[in-house]
């Protein structure tokens, strides 16, 4: 199971400057745990101490917001692309 993860500019200090990294996991929670072993500190920037997704972080599986797919329990399939973005306003 290989998941491509796109990392925003502001978190690339954790990935050695890499824009796209690869991780594994059956769910977003598993994926973030796996990524944290490769890139220590990354998970703590995305997950709060209470264990939920950070308010100002959006995570998408194939362009769909995981908060509407079960949040951290959202299921992953081989070949999925996960995108992490900071929350920005429009209008």
């Amino acid at each position, binding site marked *: 199971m290989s998941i491509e993860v796109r990392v925003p500019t502001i978190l690339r200090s954790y990935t050695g400057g890499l824009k796209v990294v690869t991780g594994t996991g059956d769910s977003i929670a598993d994926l973030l745990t796996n990524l944290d072993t490769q890139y220590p500190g990354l998970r703590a*920037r995305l997950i709060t101490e209470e264990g939920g997704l950070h308010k100002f972080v959006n995570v998408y599986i194939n362009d769909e917001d995981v*908060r509407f797919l079960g949040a951290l329990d959202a299921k992953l399939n081989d070949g999925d692309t996960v995108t992490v973005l900071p929350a920005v306003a429009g209008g």
Partner: protein
Amino acid sequence: MARFDSLLDACGNTPLVGLPRLSPSPTVRLWAKLEARNPTGSIKDRPAVWMIRAAEAAGRLRPGDTILEPTSGNTGIALAMVAKLHGYRLVCVMPENVSAERTQLLRMYGAEIIFSPGPGGSNAAVAMARQIAEEHPDWVMLNQYANEANARAHYESTGPELLRDLPTITHFVAGLGTTGTLMGVGRYLREKVDGIQIIAAEPRYGELVYGLRNIDEGYVPELYDATVLTRRFSVGTRDAVLRTRQLVEVEGIFAGFSTGAILHAALAVAHDAARAGRTADVAFVVADGGWKYLSTGAYGGTLADAETALEGQLWA
């Protein structure tokens, strides 16, 4: 009756048109709500009229007052028109990386513009406007991101119009910026239509726009309530441009790029319904026309060229 006493009275009641060529089947239909047919050419005329009227009713605005607003363009243009007709001065805080036409239109309507840094997008404009508001306590910041009259404009006008024109509506798809359209229409339709799906399409810009210093500088509009939504899609520049071109080529509707992003999400849910063998009436918002974006050059050339042309721009 298509006669109105003033331009402001001509706000809303926009056409809902079927898209027979883009619809997946005769039982899964797409419908476009043509918000470019509002007085200043975008959906933002509705919140602009509602927010100014609400501030007047509350005694917050008096003739001669100065309105201050962070905006990436359409809200500013709409407010500038209403402000001109009601006798207010308007100061807009706008990211420097928006299309040239938006600046020209604002100035034509007599608005003053203070530019905020491009990196950081609208977040930076909101932060700068808050700072300016502190320095000018007599200025009135309507703050579209937190103003309940923004969402109420859609609860009281856009939502009822959609249900009147399409009683069989199953899905509503709109762009997610201030979240006003989705919150207002979404709440209205959820009260009236069992099983209605409310779908958000959020523009995903080039990287420069996300150049915040850290995650804690992110921003979620105060109006946003995730429980109103069913699904939320992030749509990249390439898909938005592709769909914007498809809409004009196949159905003859010339729209801005945010509409392309919305259409992309609308097609996704429509095809989901078709694959599942369900009937569906999917209504989506055409937020504005393409006129204000011609200078970007993104309507011609290859998709890669268009993506490059829009890199670093707030195209929605």
